[in-house]
């Protein structure tokens, strides 16, 4: 029967997808330590580079990253996800994990501020923060439950702006994706995201006195191996800070 053949094809496609994803995370041998680092979505580029730099200095360690919204990560860690290092985009998200007793001694390792991202060509002619209140500008922001959304809310409140966003995105990269796709005229993201997006978006900087600064804490989990602290030290050290700086992050 034809349907059965199709289903077999479908199953084969699924199976090949599974084996592909398995082989890409090949089993490490006994001498290799695998560190799992859960990091805020905004750290995607910087931490990927830091991970490579760390592994080249420590060939016996492999670093796996789990990038997502900080509050999602905090929720996962609090629920017992096997994570060794947690790097959050806000002290509040870190506090969730600390409160659940799953991480200890967080330290601030970097800071970020907000910027407006507009699609290449700036179709809606957004020039200032105040332009975000215009009716003809489709603005998207992070949901207030994630750090970038909380910072955006602070930004609007501090500047007395009444912005009606079209969407509350689950993390900052989702905002950026929709701006890159030119679905939104403007999105409030981190300064670093504008740099990471390169040619696809234009950044409109927000003056320092009007801006909001987000501190990023990092911590090892209570069950983490000793190598986890070494990774944290690397992030806090010269090399880590240099890479963060290159991606637009500021000192804490």
């Amino acid at each position: 029967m034809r349907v059965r053949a199709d289903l077999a094809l479908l199953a084969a496609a699924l199976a090949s997808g599974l084996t592909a994803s398995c082989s890409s995370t090949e089993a490490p041998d006994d001498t290799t330590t695998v560190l799992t680092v859960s990091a805020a979505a905004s750290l995607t580029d910087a931490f990927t580079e830091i991970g490579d730099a760390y592994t080249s200095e420590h060939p016996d360690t492999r670093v796996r990253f789990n990038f997502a919204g900080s509050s999602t990560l905090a929720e996962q860690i609090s629920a017992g996800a096997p994570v060794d290092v947690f790097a959050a985009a806000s002290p509040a998200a870190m506090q969730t994990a600390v409160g659940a007793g799953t991480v200890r001694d967080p330290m601030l390792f970097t800071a970020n501020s907000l910027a407006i991202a507009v699609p290449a060509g700036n179709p809606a002619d957004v020039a200032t923060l105040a332009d975000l209140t215009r009716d003809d500008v489709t603005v998207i922001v992070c949901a207030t439950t994630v750090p970038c959304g909380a910072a955006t809310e602070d930004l609007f409140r501090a500047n007395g702006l009444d912005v009606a966003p079209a969407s509350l995105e689950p993390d900052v990269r989702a905002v950026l994706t929709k701006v890159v796709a030119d679905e939104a005229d403007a999105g409030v993201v981190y300064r670093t995201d504008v740099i990471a997006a390169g040619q696809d978006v234009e950044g409109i900087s927000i003056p320092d006195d009007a801006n909001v600064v987000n501190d990023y804490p990092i911590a090892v989990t209570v069950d983490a191996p000793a190598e986890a602290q070494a990774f944290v030290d690397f992030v806090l050290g010269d090399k880590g800070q240099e890479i963060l700086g290159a991606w637009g992050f500021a000192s804490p």
Partner: protein
Amino acid sequence: MTSTTAEPRRRQAPAPGVVLVLAIVALAFLGLPLIGLLLAAPWGQMTELLTTPAALEALRLSLVTSILAAALAVVLGLPLAWLIARREFPGRNIVRGLVLIPLVLPPVVGGVTLLTAFGRRGLVGQYLFDWFGIQLPFSTAGVVLAEAFVAMPFLVITVEGALRSIDPRFEEAARTLGAKPSRVLLRVTAPLIAPSLVAGALLAWARALGEFGATITFAGNFPGVTQTLPLAVYSALEVSREEAIALSVVLLGISFAVLVSLRGRFLGGRG
């Protein structure tokens, strides 16, 4: 599928041991997460958690969009299923493969593909936007579109299978007796595949109700406009686990109730 209904019930032979054991494992695998959810549910605060304006809004939006998406899947998917099942045409196997794509595509990727087609800079979307000022992303219509995209394959596959399994002699007989093709379709084919059509529509509806990835990627997330129940669950998970679990229980309750009752009624299931 329907020919056995008139057969008298016979005494059933016991199920082979291996079958029984594997079936029980399967049931436990599917059922345990649900039991875990029900045990974790904050039954005491259920009413207050679910009657918040945000929760009610998400519930309403989910019901409206999933029903519209299922309707869209039926209106467009039924003719497609008929064409694939009943007409030889070049590239038919490719078409059949295309229909299955939304099933294997990660829904978030599905959302991205929808953006490239129906976004305001998309293949079709740019004309909608430039000529009519219609922007599907960030709109409720966009939610329906995203849900229909992932749900339609379920309808097409189910109905196509049914069309292939019915005896073509019924239709031939009607034709030789002088019925016009449209009349054959309406009076002979349609009643024969009705149970499968209902089953396919239900599957499509259930898939649409639970849709998350394509919706949040294509339509965004705003309460009252695009924040359906699954998106509300995801948003709530970041703040309040209790609220997220309460919403999940509602989502499950609705789907389970509708699927059980309607399947029983239309497909002659016996509980």
